[in-house]
């Protein structure tokens, strides 16, 4: 089966996010009452697996080995079956 894994990598609490801070300032300047902006990266990875469980396990491995650094990043995975 073909799957798409949406892997969202965001900073763990307490880590600086200069892009979010700069975006917040810009939105405030435009007149919005914005208190904070969190910026994360979303990787949509397309691949084949036998079951949704196997797809999830593969995405988990990809996150640990490449996409996220456990010292500073959190990640969430959602798996969608492709037609």
């Amino acid at each position, binding site marked *: 089966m073909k799957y798409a894994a949406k892997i969202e990598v965001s900073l763990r609490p*307490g880590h*600086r996010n*200069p892009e979010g801070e700069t975006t917040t300032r810009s939105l405030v300047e435009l007149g919005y009452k914005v208190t904070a902006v969190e910026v994360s990266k979303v990787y949509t990875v397309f691949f084949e697996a036998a079951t949704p469980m196997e797809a999830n396990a593969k995405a988990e491995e990809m996150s*640990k*080995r*490449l996409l996220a*650094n*456990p*010292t500073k990043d959190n990640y969430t995975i959602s798996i969608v079956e492709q037609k």
Partner: protein
Amino acid sequence: MNADDIKVCILRVGGTNCDAETKRAFTELGAQAEVIQISDMIKLRNLLDYNILVLPGGFSYGDYVRSGVIFARHLSAQLGKEIQSFVDEGRPILGICNGFQILVEYGLLPSLDGVSEYAQAALTTNEPSGFKCKWVYLKQENHGKCAFTTAIPTGKTIQLPIAHGEGRLLFPKEKEDAILERLIDEDMIVLRYCNNNGEVAEGKYPANPNGSFYDIAGICNKEGNIFGLMPHPERAMYWWQLPNWTSTNQKFQYGDGKLIFQSIINTLTKKSSR
């Protein structure tokens, strides 16, 4: 082994940009240094023909995903066996700036319990944020373990330049204290940011330019043969690279960066003459 018997492999990929200066520094001290594109190394698989491996500074693979991680995974996937043999034989590996980030992402540093499968630390966004390109003072705090600082007495202050946006060394918050204890106990701390009087920065900017934990600028592994540092010794090799060179009247020939390269040459030449 004489200095001119020492073969240095400076491994580069797209985005590496400090390879030429690094080669020149080693060549100046008599070693045979070569800049090798990783695709050539993968074809030839002759890493073990070299005595020193250097991962130079730059922005390997555009710093995509995270600084250094793509190069690190490329190395482990394509040359993992050779790297493991290189490490097991105690051959020296140096990572400068982006090279340090690569060593951390690979799991070669701090490698508290051998080479780790996943990164045990992160070199993350500077605090205060922003790319910092400036000269810093560094205190050499290693007590003899690190093969790359044997020519710098413990406690001595040196000056090197930094140029990075992600040089803040952090460990997982919940393990920070335990890891620091091990780094100190195993003599793995090498360079710490300090002020011009040699007093460690204690986290304060601008002496600590990036908010790095415990003011750490460079660490080595337990065996002392793998060394990573954010500052650039290759940019402080000659007197004319120093910030105050116009007022020095050329009284000395080299900058403090030379001490890092000289140390490893000394270590290898002494080792083989024993």
